[in-house]
């Protein structure tokens, strides 16, 4: 055997040996403990880092999950299979992982809601409009039509329709709830996918006032509440649904003159 070859072997083998040895020692002495579960959980999360769970990112959330400081269905984006897998990893039950969908509880678009005498000029953003005398519509409870929810949606699951009211593209929606936070008028609410009865209005004005503001507002007449056995309650001129007591069959939708309360067709 050539002497150079021996040196070559010795060099590389020696380097490998020294390196492995150093690493082994370092691994023993300088190790930072980390629960291996965290990495496994993190892998199951979508990795969108959307912050919908309220944490600084997916990794942060998985740390909290493992520490038991966050609910297993806390991630609004994860697909149900993965939620189940995480729950199994953590030895938990994945109860109530029903998909939530945002519902826009206002129908007062450009053609229904009355305008102010003065037109609003300025940035077309709901929250920016809201601080200038509350935008251009007379109703102080309804949709401003600036599309903040559409901009806020990280999944492009919302669009403004022709009438200036946002719509949700349900297949793209992950239920993260960022649109709810974006709306300065709080007209977007998260509801389980299968709920199908809503009052599409948030106006608390009295019947006369609200009628003058918008043709599709809830006037607070109480027709829907009458035979609902507490399914619908009137609070300050507005129908509020109590989903625990709700029985859709008992509500007389046809009595609502403005169509504020409706039963919608949900996809199962």
């Amino acid at each position: 055997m050539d002497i150079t070859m021996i040196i070559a072997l010795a060099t590389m083998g020696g380097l490998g040996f020294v390196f492995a040895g150093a690493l082994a020692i370092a691994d023993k002495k300088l190790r930072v403990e980390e629960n291996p579960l965290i990495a496994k959980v993190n892998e199951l999360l979508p990795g969108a880092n959307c912050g919908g769970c309220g944490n600084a990112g997916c990794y942060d959330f998985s740390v909290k999950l493992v520490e038991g400081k966050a609910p297993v269905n806390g991630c609004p984006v994860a697909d149900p299979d993965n939620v189940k897998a995480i729950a199994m990893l953590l030895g938990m039950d994945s109860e109530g992982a029903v998909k939530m969908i945002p519902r826009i509880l206002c129908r007062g678009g450009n053609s229904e809601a009355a305008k102010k005498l003065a037109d609003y000029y300025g940035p077309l953003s709901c929250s920016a409009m809201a601080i200038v005398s509350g935008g251009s519509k007379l109703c102080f409870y309804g949709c401003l039509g600036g599309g903040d929810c559409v901009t806020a949606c990280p999944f492009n699951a919302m669009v403004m329709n022709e009438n200036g009211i946002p719509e949700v593209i349900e297949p793209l929606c992950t239920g993260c709830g960022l649109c709810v936070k974006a709306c300065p008028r709080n007209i977007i609410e998260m509801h389980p996918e299968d709920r199908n009865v809503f009052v599409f209005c948030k106006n608390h004005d009295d019947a006369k006032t609200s009628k003058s503001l918008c043709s599709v507002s809830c006037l607070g007449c109480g027709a829907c509440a009458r035979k609902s056995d507490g399914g619908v309650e009137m609070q300050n001129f507005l129908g509020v649904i109590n989903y625990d007591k709700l029985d859709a069959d008992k509500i007389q939708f046809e009595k609502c003159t403005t169509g504020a309360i409706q039963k919608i067709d949900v996809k199962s």
Partner: protein
Amino acid sequence: MKKQVSLTKEFVKGIWEINPTFKQLLGFCPTLAVTVSAMNGIAMALATTFVLIFSSLIISLIRKLIPGQVRIATYIVIIATFVTIVDLVMKAKFPELSKSLGPFIPLIVVNCVILGRAEAFASKNNPLRSFLDALGNGLGILLVLTVLGGIREILGSRMIFGAPILPDSFEPWIIMILPAGAFLTLGLLLGFSNTLTERKKRLERESLLNKYRPAKAVTEVKEGGAA
């Protein structure tokens, strides 16, 4: 947990779907440095593919023997070995090419694509799949380097594969064979490829929107005009 994909898919995905340069944004250094001509690009891509395939294969074969702590070190040594082989072979057999690719052959070692595939794929999959994955990714690199080298060669020196294709009246854009030209060309290519992807996504969204308008009311609604 992961669903097993077909072998064909394993191979094809590297070419475009997870193209190392365009989608994984890895291995920019050689991409930019050697693409002054299409030929150089192809040579570099082939060299990289060679290293990629063999290191993937070896790593996949011995993946179960390697302890986690020395994983990266082991991969690097394996990769470095193959790179040296390529380097020596090129110097011996293709001295001209070796001269023009300059110091960039050794730098294949730190091409993140190779380590990336080793870490993300070869260390978790069997040799056959690793081989196909490496081949696919290699072709992806080949595609990008050839296109990039081609564009730069045509505009920068009027030629493609060393043969003039533009008329003499075309004054070559020297900037294209300078570093600045490399950055600009790759930036623009990447931008256009992203724009195409965005466009595709948007179209998909639009069709989704038309298909699934949000839940419609069951009860009839009287549509009123403005108050």
